[in-house]
């Protein structure tokens, strides 16, 4: 059994965002074969040492106050994202770096989640040279373009950071075929260096409720007799735009209840009077999030930009929810329009929602069931994990 260290400049547990889920579940899959330690950087809170079955440790290291202050200033005064600040000032996270060094003394492989941990990893390697696997959650220049805008001064720096981690990595794990092709075309990465390790879902986490229990839950929640559509996402421009579309549709469809989950609810622009049929539920713990999913009638994904893939799609499908999604929102999931989800454009959203709310529930359930079967067979983290474990086995070799 080899030792693997995963470096992440933000916490991976408890997980709330798609990226955090990717880190947690792929690391847990690797821990079936190896001792895996994920060293994560937190902004405040206590130092934590968390152990999971079968052989996964997550260390949550708070950044020292001066670094936290620097990061805050860079963001507020110069609009530099925290990840970019970390890539330049990683050596000011003394405790984190020491723990990373300690854990890497005996490791056979280092995994960089996102491109920003490269320098911290190289420093922690000391004189030892072990392979680095770059787990690319996105094509970073595309993802950052969405957040910062095409003309942001910092874009050349982000490209350089991405270029550097690619050059220093033994392999790349990417989320979608599109991302793989982009890395090959834009960064001239050899095709055999890139493996598509798609996003997935923990199907075991989905609660199993009988039809009666589900109905009772809906009654208790005041949803009885109301068609309920759900959207989940973090506070990220494509999700914010999606919620704006939902709010607009909600104003036209008062008989449908819209539930919005996740940190997207924190967006300052949503702290205004919203249509009465919209519930902004915020960030929920896993059990409550899954409960909200299984009591809903329809899931929405109206994302039209970004990179990587949307983890929410796998979760919607695993919960057996029929999905109304843009084709872009379904990229990289393997879900097929018409068969596993209802496709929609943003302009026709209200009409599509009205039609689905009035549609035969058995027909909706059929699409939901087809999506559920599909992700159980292809996208459970255990299934995805097999490819990831094979990729890592190839990198570690005889170490």
């Amino acid at each position, binding site marked *: 059994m080899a030792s693997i260290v995963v470096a992440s400049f933000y916490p991976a547990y408890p997980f709330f965002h798609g990226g955090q889920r990717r880190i947690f579940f792929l690391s847990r899959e690797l821990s079936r074969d190896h001792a895996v330690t994920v060293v994560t950087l937190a902004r405040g809170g206590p130092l934590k040492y*968390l152990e999971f079955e079968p052989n996964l440790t997550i260390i949550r290291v708070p950044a020292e106050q001066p670094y936290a202050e620097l990061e805050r200033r860079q963001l507020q005064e110069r609009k530099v994202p925290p990840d970019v600040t970390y890539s330049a000032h990683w050596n000011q996270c003394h405790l984190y770096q020491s*723990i990373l060094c300690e854990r890497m003394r005996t490791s056979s492989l280092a995994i960089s989640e996102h491109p920003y941990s490269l320098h911290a990893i190289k420093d922690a390697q000391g004189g030892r040279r072990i392979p680095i696997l770059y787990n690319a959650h996105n094509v970073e220049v595309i993802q950052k373009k969405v957040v910062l805008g095409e003309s942001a001064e910092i874009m050349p720096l982000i490209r350089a950071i991405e270029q550097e981690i690619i050059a220093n990595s033994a392999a790349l794990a990417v989320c979608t075929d599109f991302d793989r092709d982009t890395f090959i075309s834009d960064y001239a990465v050899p095709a055999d260096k890139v493996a598509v390790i798609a996003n997935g879902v923990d199907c*075991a*986490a989905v609660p199993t409720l009988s039809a009666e229990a589900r109905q009772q839950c809906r009654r*208790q*929640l005041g949803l009885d007799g109301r068609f309920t559509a759900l959207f989940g996402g973090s506070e990220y421009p494509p999700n914010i735009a999606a919620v704006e579309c939902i709010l607009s549709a909600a104003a036209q469809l008062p008989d449908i209840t819209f539930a919005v989950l996740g940190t997207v609810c924190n967006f300052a622009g949503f702290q205004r009077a919203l249509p009465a049929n919209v519930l902004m539920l915020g960030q929920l713990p896993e*059990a409550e999030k899954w409960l*909200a999913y299984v009591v809903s009638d329809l899931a929405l994904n109206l994302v039209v930009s970004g990179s990587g893939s949307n983890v929410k799609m796998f979760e919607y499908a695993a919960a057996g929810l029929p999905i109304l999604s843009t084709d872009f929102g379904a990229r990289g999931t393997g879900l097929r329009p018409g068969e596993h989800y209802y496709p929609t454009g943003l302009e026709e959203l209200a009409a599509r929602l009205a039609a689905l709310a009035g549609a035969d529930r058995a027909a909706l359930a059929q699409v939901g069931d087809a999506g559920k079967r599909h992700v159980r067979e292809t996208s459970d983290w255990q299934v995805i994990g097999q490819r990831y474990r094979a990729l890592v086995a190839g990198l570690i070799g005889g170490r």
Partner: protein
Amino acid sequence: MLPESGGTSAQFVAALQRISADLKADQTSLPRVRDVMPPPVLCPGPDSPVRFLPLIDMTALPGAGALRRLDGKRWRFVDLAAFEGADFAYAVRRSLLHRLPTERDIEAASSIEGRFRLLLEVDFEARRLNGPGRLIGLSPAKRLYRVLRALETLRLRPLAAAVHALLDRRARRAFAKHRDRIAAWRRRLAAIAPPRDGR
């Protein structure tokens, strides 16, 4: 529960929490976590008592009443002198600098004199780098250590050797003077983290 029936999003979330708590645990299978306290990091092994030393003020320690007065910033000689060998090297580097000891540090920590010099050296470095920890007290020894460094920089070897000898004498005196307090501190550490194999 819904807004139009007088409910709010907050009430909806509260209802979700209630229902979720009422549902049987076997209806879902979320990852189970074990929170290991204190975190066994920056210490020679997972059973080392060094893990009980607070790393920063944000580190919460369970049931370690005897160590509770430590704030992770200001360290007295006796707080660290209770450790020996590799434990001492880890305790000093970790507490004053949040760093790992080198092989040379661990070697130096095998003798009283070496431990004393290592403590002064790491404190000197922590102050120079504005590190997270400080050694309080031992001011004359700290001054002597600074003189030693200056002499070594100037390559005044005979003088440096003399100061070195003075520091060694101070080391022996400090450990002897605080013998009872060090012993008491060791007993408290042993009570918190019982040594294995009857050590």
